[in-house]
């Protein structure tokens, strides 16, 4: 049998950033008709390698061949005309424009006057072909994360992409959406496209890919057919050591609630009611899981619980003290830590790593004397935290914005867990999003440790396995309301999955 065409071949790519060797003569080939998984720890250089292929960075050394021809890719424009498309971790869509407008923007083949009737028809066909259900005329802000991703993929396909790069696409998806995405990827591969899938989730890699390439510290360690390897081996190749399994112990909680909310009504950014009348109680030493498809009011709820969003009605009590609509600084002072979903937005990208670590605790007497900051302690402490949390950075003085996705997430977690000595509540939104296996385990361990010290934890996650592993209790949200609550003994994938689509808890049981 003839072997399939090489769509892409990257040879000995080296890319250096100030203080970091992001790619160290890395090589990578993508074949026609394959889904090729790219694995590696946080900061291993996966995104950098693919950004080079997409023309966002120019390599310091190395060669790129596309369909056998040597090419210079000077920008995304060049990449697009070579048939390369990329879906980034952060979506690059315009929320106020329609799906169709987002897809055709910049396209040359549409004529000066846009015939939306025809364009929409063509797009609808494409959407139907992939078994999706978005409408070309919806505004993008109305879509779920999974649907936005579909728009991004369509955008690439519309421009005739044959080489599709997806950077951690499943980190924003629900389990159901992930299944749909994987069907799409298989379909595209069977049509002769080449798909690069960057992921940290080994089970997904095993399920969907044809070949795997593992990266470690900028180098491509190995490329293997997926059939010939297993999760254990991949984890070992990535980390260079064996991992231990996390064991969650049963709950030791009880007594007075540490956080209590009643009758909460919260508006979203558009002024619509996102949370309608929610009451909940969080106990000491408890992990309360919040399940739900994103966009059902969870984000607004937790922002209110950490003082970042005003509530329209209702009350928030922290350790019996009324906190409703108090400034977020009060929440910090009272010991509420917040690990946000979009960690990048909650770092000061132009400030140094060390400054970011103490961003919320600089008032602490450890770091400041009157109005002066004691920089020596700050840097000592920052150095220790960087080591403890395994943050890959050239130095404590490097710009936080240049860290890799996973390392920014670690930075934020480090900052929040070191907030102060008397943390009472941790509100964590998708804390392991974008983290590699080892760091996910690390974060989960940290949360369990905090729980054992009596901290109450609210955990928002779309990864049901993670929720089941860590939570003592799970509530499910749908359209701004709590539709069900389950104690640990009754955790069940199907049950929770159904509730996430709006079936009430009582009906599920029946």
């Amino acid at each position, binding site marked *: 049998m003839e072997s399939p065409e090489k769509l892409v071949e990257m040879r000995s790519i080296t890319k250096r950033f100030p203080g970091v060797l992001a790619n160290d003569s890395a090589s990578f080939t993508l074949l026609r008709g394959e889904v090729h998984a790219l694995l590696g720890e946080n900061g291993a250089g996966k995104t950098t390698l693919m950004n080079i292929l997409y023309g966002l960075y120019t390599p310091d050394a190395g060669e790129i061949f596309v369909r056998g021809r040597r090419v210079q890719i000077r920008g*995304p424009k060049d990449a697009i005309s070579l048939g390369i498309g990329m879906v980034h971790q952060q979506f*690059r869509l*315009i929320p*106020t*424009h329609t799906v169709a*407008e987002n897809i055709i*923007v910049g396209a040359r083949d549409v004529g*000066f*006057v*846009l015939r939306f009737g025809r364009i929409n028809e063509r797009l609808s066909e494409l959407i139907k072909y992939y078994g999706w259900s978005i409408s070309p005329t919806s505004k993008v802000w109305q879509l779920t994360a999974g649907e936005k991703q579909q728009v991004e993929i369509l955008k690439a396909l519309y421009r005739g992409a044959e080489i599709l790069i997806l950077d951690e696409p499943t980190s924003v998806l629900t389990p159901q959406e992930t299944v749909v995405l994987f069907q799409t990827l298989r379909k595209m591969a069977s049509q002769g496209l080449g798909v690069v899938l960057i992921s940290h989730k080994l089970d997904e890699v095993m399920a969907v890919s044809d070949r795997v390439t593992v990266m470690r510290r900028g180098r491509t360690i190995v490329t293997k057919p997926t059939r010939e390897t297993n999760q254990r081996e991949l984890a070992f190749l990535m980390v260079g050591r064996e991992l231990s399994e996390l064991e969650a112990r049963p709950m030791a909680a009880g007594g007075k609630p540490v956080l209590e909310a009643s009758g909460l009504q919260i508006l979203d950014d558009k002024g619509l009611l996102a949370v309608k009348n929610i009451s909940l109680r969080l106990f000491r030493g408890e992990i309360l899981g919040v399940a739900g498809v994103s966009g059902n009011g969870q984000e607004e709820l937790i922002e209110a619980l950490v003082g970042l969003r005003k509530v329209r009605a209702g009350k928030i009590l922290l350790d019996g003290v009324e906190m409703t609509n108090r400034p977020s600084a009060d929440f910090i002072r009272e010991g509420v830590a917040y690990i946000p979903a979009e960690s990048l937005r909650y770092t000061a990208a132009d400030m140094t790593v060390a400054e970011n670590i103490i961003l919320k605790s600089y008032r602490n007497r450890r770091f400041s004397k009157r109005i002066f900051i004691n920089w020596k302690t700050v840097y000592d402490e920052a150095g220790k935290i960087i080591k403890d949390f395994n943050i890959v950075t050239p130095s404590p003085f490097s710009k936080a914005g240049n860290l890799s996705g996973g390392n920014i997430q670690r930075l934020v977690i480090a900052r929040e867990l070191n907030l102060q000595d008397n943390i009472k509540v941790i509100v964590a939104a998708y804390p392991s999003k974008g983290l590699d296996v080892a760091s996910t385990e690390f974060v989960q361990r940290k949360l369990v440790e905090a729980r054992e010290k009596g901290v109450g934890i609210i955990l928002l996650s779309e990864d049901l396995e993670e929720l089941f592993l860590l939570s003592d209790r799970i509530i499910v949200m749908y359209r701004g309301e709590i539709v069900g609550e389950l104690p640990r003994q009754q955790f069940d994938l199907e049950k929770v999955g159904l509730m996430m689509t709006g079936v009430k808890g009582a009906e599920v049981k029946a």
Partner: protein
Amino acid sequence: MSLVAVEWIESVLIGAVQAGTVFLIASLGEIYAERSGVLNLGMEGMMIVGAAVSFIVTNALGHGYAILAVLLAGLLLGLAHSFLTVSLRLNQIVVGLAITILGLGLGGLLGNAAIRRGIILFLNPEAPERNLIVQEAEKLPDIPIPFLRDIPVLGGMFFRQNGLVYLSLILAIVMWFILFKTRFGLSLRSVGENPAMSDAMGINVFRIRYISMVVCGMLGALAGSYLFIGYQPFWVEGMTQGRGFIALALVILATWNPLRAILGAYLFGGVEALQFRLQVLGVAAQLPQFLLMLPYIVTIATLVLLSLESVRKRIGVPASLGKPYSRE
């Protein structure tokens, strides 16, 4: 209702269109600039330059050349603004206000009797002596449209006006169509929302912003010339009286939509017409002072509004408005 009252109301409505056309032309330009991500606080200055140029050139060479000269002046001001804010990436608020101050100064200079005389003679050595000294210019002629002009009320409002009033309405419709129904318009709106993404999609961000700013400059100057030769052809220094800033507020009220700007412009024009007529009747003597203050209040409110992230999201401000773009 008495006949007098009906006639009075009709005159207010006609006045609303005549006064509102200044706002309409200016806000159409500003909508394009802001949709592409450039805030033009120089509107007031562009208008006064347009008024002054039309004053001088009309007296030298007549209306046709005057309009051409005005468009050229606006083009240069628009180019200057985009060079500073798009290419050099200077702060748009500072550049805009500087252009306003420059325009007001330039307007004063051009209005100066000796300088005016010199320019008019330079443009047309045969200009009659009267044209060298008058503080006014010939008004644009009204062009009544047959049949339609006889429709009650509407005929007076829309079909017995001068050419610039018609042009402004046609422009609003054409500019709306271009913005929402063409490839160029989609690129323009995308640049205003997300320049980095637009750049990656092969759109020339700088070209789009230059084009929008030049259109804005030309329409700003045209609005000023309408104010003078189309509405109040008597030269008074600083005659724009903050109308450029009002147009800025109108853009927000119209949520960056050229068709909605028509309604808003006539609403603002109506306020002006009403105030004028109430004054004649001796009512509301304090109103003028208040209205003179309005542009400044409106501007401050606009800037405050635009800086509040939550408000920006809710009213749909172009996401990159006011932010210079650079490729890393």
